[in-house]
């Protein structure tokens, strides 16, 4: 019952069928990201759940003098988007990368043609993609289910969003680079225990 009996008679695969390594890496990292559940639950789930709660409170739909005639729900929309970015950038990304470092995965990758940089690149791309999905979800659900206002200046909104996303992901990389022990990471930014 060999689980990973190494190749007994190694034979090279017929040439011409190599899988693109970067794509395979990205696909594998994405599978793991979803399987880990932390990123999807906190980065996508929490902002949407909060939106549903806020949207269901009648007083959130009343225009308020103190907000310049805006209602609370519209005020909270950017906050929810920022929350999704922060959870992905400051929690999901550093906890994945720090565990990769602790387990020697980045070192192992350094000994393969793929190198550790592309692992970081794949993770950044996945988190950025998730942030886009989270933003679309918050805006879409807010608009269709609760009549929340959409950004009035889409181009400016996209620019500010991108700056925020890049800043938070960069912070996440910094945390992953300096956080050595489990404890520090969990104490600082981790919203919940995973394992």
């Amino acid at each position, binding site marked *: 019952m060999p*689980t*990973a*009996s190494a*190749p007994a008679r190694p034979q090279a*695969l017929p040439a011409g069928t*190599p899988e693109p390594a970067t794509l395979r890496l990205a696909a594998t990292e994405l599978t793991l990201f979803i399987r880990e559940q932390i990123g999807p639950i906190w980065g996508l789930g929490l902002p949407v759940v909060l939106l549903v709660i806020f949207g269901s409170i009648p007083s959130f739909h009343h225009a308020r003098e103190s907000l310049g005639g805006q209602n609370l729900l519209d005020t909270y929309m950017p906050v929810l988007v920022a929350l999704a970015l922060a959870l992905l950038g400051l929690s999901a990304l550093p906890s994945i990368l720090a565990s*990769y470092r602790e387990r020697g*995965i980045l070192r*192992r990758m350094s*000994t393969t043609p793929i190198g550790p940089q592309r692992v970081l690149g794949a993770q950044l791309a996945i988190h950025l993609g998730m942030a886009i999905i989270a933003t679309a979800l918050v805006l879409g659900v807010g608009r269709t289910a609760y009549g929340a206002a959409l950004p009035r200046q889409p181009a400016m909104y996209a620019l500010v969003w991108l700056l925020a996303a890049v800043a938070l992901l960069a912070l996440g990389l910094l945390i992953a680079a300096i956080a050595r022990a489990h404890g520090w990471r969990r104490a600082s930014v981790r919203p919940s225990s995973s394992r």
Partner: protein
Amino acid sequence: MTAVVEVRELRKSYGDTVAVRDVSLTVQRGEIFGIIGPNGAGKTTTVECIEGLRTPDRGQIRVLGLDPGRDHGELRQRMGVQLQDSQLPERLRVGEALRLFSSFYRAPVDWRALMERTKFGKLSGGQRQRLSIALALVGNPEVVVLDELTTGLDPQARRDTWTLIEGVRDRGATIVLVTHFMEEAEWLCDRVAVIDSGRIVALDSPAALAAASDAPQRITFRPAAPLDDALLTALPEVTSLERRRGEVVVTGTGNVVTAVTSALASRGIVAGQLRVEQASLEDAFITLTAQR
């Protein structure tokens, strides 16, 4: 014979600690080359420099004619590596790991035959070790560097792994093996470098190292008839004799085996359950690394 791995006057220190003081070695194509030594002797640092994971402070390294620091792109295609304690993501499945790693290489072996759905986190220590070996070989490498190959494996799995490594060598790969199992080095390696305190203290075939160690030989037997100790202790080759649980244990050097058996034969005493323990690589290792 072509040199596949060449290390010349390697030196590497971490802060004030000198891990590798002066190591030079050459590994020929098709060879299984062992590196043994006590903990902290610099074995892992040496192979990490060969793998390109560390930059030497001094000295020169060539692997397949390439510089591990400068030409790592090309070298990583042709070198398979097993690190001492590297793990994989907990939830990565075995088949996914094999598929992922095989995608890194130009001419990988077929990983599908090794497919398994178990997640890494659910594997036993021995299974993890076997996966780690499989991942080192999946790229069909010309050079394989294995650090602590069979640690955590049970005796049967260890034997199977040795057979596997011999098979990899037989198809032309060159293997550098760090181990602390003397039996493993004795079984597998064509040549062994003994490293102690960052230096190579001996480099030869396991048999030659064992022979040079001049360790005493031990003969154990159960005499069929009463035996007078003086008969054997009088022999010049015998250094000591003791009795243990009805058995006679004779220690000696040189041609002690012939001397003892002929002395016994001259009195017509049959030596039952006769065993001879000869100097092994382990004896050589202890002799070599004790004299610091």
